[in-house]
């Protein structure tokens, strides 16, 4: 069997990109990435073997998705994409006047070539980061571009809604690029879910370029369907004195590899990464969450919490990487997994890579069962065991819930969690 990089020819790829009216530099980037695929490997997720997963597709096609298939109200969102089709863009006039740009990535590549050229897969994730990143760059079919110019601050979060179109065969290869100018302050919530039950793959990336002294709050709520095989890569490049907080609710129903990293490049940069995941049935999920301290006096904090049900598998790797020269830096991490079934397999691995003496680093990890004293307390007030367990679990996951700035999205995540727990329990 031929691998995907052997099946996609350079001619085919450039023809494909031309149909999309892409600028030459982007086409060249695709071709280069396609070459890079030949020598690269899958990203390594320690203690998680997914080598035999089919994470790429040779289907190169521009596919329209029919918005009439969606019956949900998406008016409140800033931008909605269904498959490769952008359904709506809604940016407050006030933000437009301040120079904020929100559009689909290909439009941005044509209309704001310099901004996209300089930031797309150059600063946070390079096309040769790993095999799936090069596949991503070569075969990209949708994307979002958000640019917030220097000194712009706003409170109302930007809400990005991606809907994978699994009413048909169509791999989702999507890239969200967020550029936060110096001294900016804002929040972004990205939700991603699946419409339809066709088996498809999702290869969705988010890059955040946080320039000097910017404060960016990211929330990602993933709810891909059970027939979606997902590779999610998210990375922020955090500049001098900039802060990026990223909360991720990994609620996919299908097998997933998550590769999340924040790079503290500038001195004084800070980042928090919070991840919650629930796995059930026979689902397999492996997640790397890393913070790399490059600049001096940088502070990184990783918190991962997971609940595993049924026969599922969840691996959390927390990677704290302090490079040589990052003196005065801190790296903290906590990875915890709650086992709700004896057949589930959980692994919480703190990985500390420290090449500098003058640092503070700490880690905690556990895989365990529900705290009996908490259950007893709740049950002593008349709550059934099932309800008590759900409350304890929700509490266990609470640290990430509270990091999400919008109450409605918080509530949504709580609902998803409860649905997953109820679902998982039934099949015990």
């Amino acid at each position, binding site marked *: 069997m031929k691998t995907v990089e052997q099946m996609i020819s350079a001619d085919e790829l450039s023809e494909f990109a031309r149909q999309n009216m892409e600028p030459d530099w982007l086409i060249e980037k695709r071709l280069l990435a396609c070459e890079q695929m030949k020598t690269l490997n899958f990203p390594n997720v320690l203690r998680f073997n997914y080598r035999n997963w089919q994470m790429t597709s040779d289907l190169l096609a521009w596919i329209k998705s029919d918005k009439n298939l969606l019956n949900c109200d998406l008016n409140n969102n800033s931008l909605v994409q269904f498959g490769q089709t952008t359904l709506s863009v809604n940016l407050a006039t006030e933000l437009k006047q301040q120079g904020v740009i929100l559009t689909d990535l290909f439009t941005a590549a044509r209309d704001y070539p310099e901004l996209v050229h300089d930031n797309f897969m150059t600063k946070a994730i390079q096309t040769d980061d790993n095999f799936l990143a090069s596949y991503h760059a070569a075969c990209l079919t949708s994307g979002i571009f958000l640019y917030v110019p220097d000194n712009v601050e706003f409170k109302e979060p930007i809400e990005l809604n991606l809907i994978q179109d699994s009413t048909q065969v169509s791999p989702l290869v999507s890239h969200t690029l967020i550029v936060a100018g110096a001294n900016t302050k804002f929040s972004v919530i990205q939700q991603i879910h699946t419409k339809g039950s066709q088996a498809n793959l999702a290869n969705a990336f988010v890059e955040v370029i946080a320039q000097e002294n910017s404060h960016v709050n990211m929330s990602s709520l993933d709810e891909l369907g059970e027939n979606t095989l997902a590779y999610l890569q998210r990375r922020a490049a955090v500049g001098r004195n900039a802060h990026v907080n990223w909360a991720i609710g990994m609620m996919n129903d299908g097998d997933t590899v998550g590769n999340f990293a924040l790079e503290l490049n500038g001195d004084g940069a800070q980042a928090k990464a919070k991840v919650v995941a629930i796995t059930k049935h026979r689902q397999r999920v492996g997640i790397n969450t890393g913070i790399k301290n490059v600049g001096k006096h940088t502070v990184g904090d990783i918190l991962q919490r997971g609940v595993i049900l049924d026969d599922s598998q969840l691996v959390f790797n927390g990677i704290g990487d302090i490079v040589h020269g990052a003196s005065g830096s801190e790296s903290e991490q906590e990875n915890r997994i709650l086992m709700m079934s004896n057949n589930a397999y959980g692994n919480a691995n703190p990985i500390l890579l420290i090449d500098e003496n003058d640092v503070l680093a700490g880690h905690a990890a556990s895989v365990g069962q529900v*705290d*009996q*004293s*908490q259950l*007893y*307390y*709740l*049950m*002593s*007030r*008349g*709550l*059934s*065991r099932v*309800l*008590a367990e759900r*409350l*304890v679990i*929700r*509490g*266990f*996951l*609470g*640290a990430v*819930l*509270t990091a999400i700035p919008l109450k409605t999205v918080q509530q949504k995540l709580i609902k998803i969690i409860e649905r997953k727990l109820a679902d998982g329990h039934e099949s015990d």
Partner: protein
Amino acid sequence: MGILEIKDLHVSVTDDETQHAKEILKGVNLTIKTGEIHAIMGPNGTGKSTLSETIMGAAAYQVTQGDILLNGESIVNMPVDERARKGLFLGMQYPAEIQGVTNAEFLRAAMNARRLEDDQISVMNFLKELDKNLDLLDMSEEMTERYLNEGFSGGEKKRNEILQLMMIKPSFALLDEIDSGLDIDALKVVSKGVNAMRGDNFGSLIITHYQRLLNYIVPDVVHIMMDGKIVKTGNAELAKTLEVEGYAGLRDDLDLDVALVDEN
């Protein structure tokens, strides 16, 4: 009228490491009716908390002999939550902290747990009841939006136990050292809460080391417990005598052969 009967109750606790079972309660007899407040006093390590935890149904305590009857029905084989829904409440010495669940949300869940599916409390009625009780306990509304006991001070936790008591309105409340760690003002507030519950439909068993609490919640009956048994029962005066004589004095009066944990 409700009645809680403890009959010849023997309880053991098994040491996790040695697997050796140790008998803590050695034949406790006690009857509490609604409308009555009982106090149990006794020196450290005598089995007072074991009694309250066993009545509530904590898993660590094994009933080896005897019975516990609530309104004539044996509850020793009932799970904790069912006992609670039948009308028991345990105000704990060390309430668990639960992140991510707000006090208000928990209170509503607890109140609804003992109501029928089609008779859940309305938000309006809940808030009305909540405001009334917060007011009485001198607690701020902000407390109800905080996570259950998380980061609460010792005193706040105790107040919160009493708030739950007042919202849930059990027929019998076991209050395990609700006075420990309280300053005098907090003690008064907590007592006010318990006293507000007094009435024909409420009975309570109050566990305490000190007579001080009983100045504020005057009991109808006082029991002295030593070495896993009730050794003396009397009225509120008994607690005052004890305050003067101490447990050692009482033991000698009763001519008991009991070693006290904290005796020199």
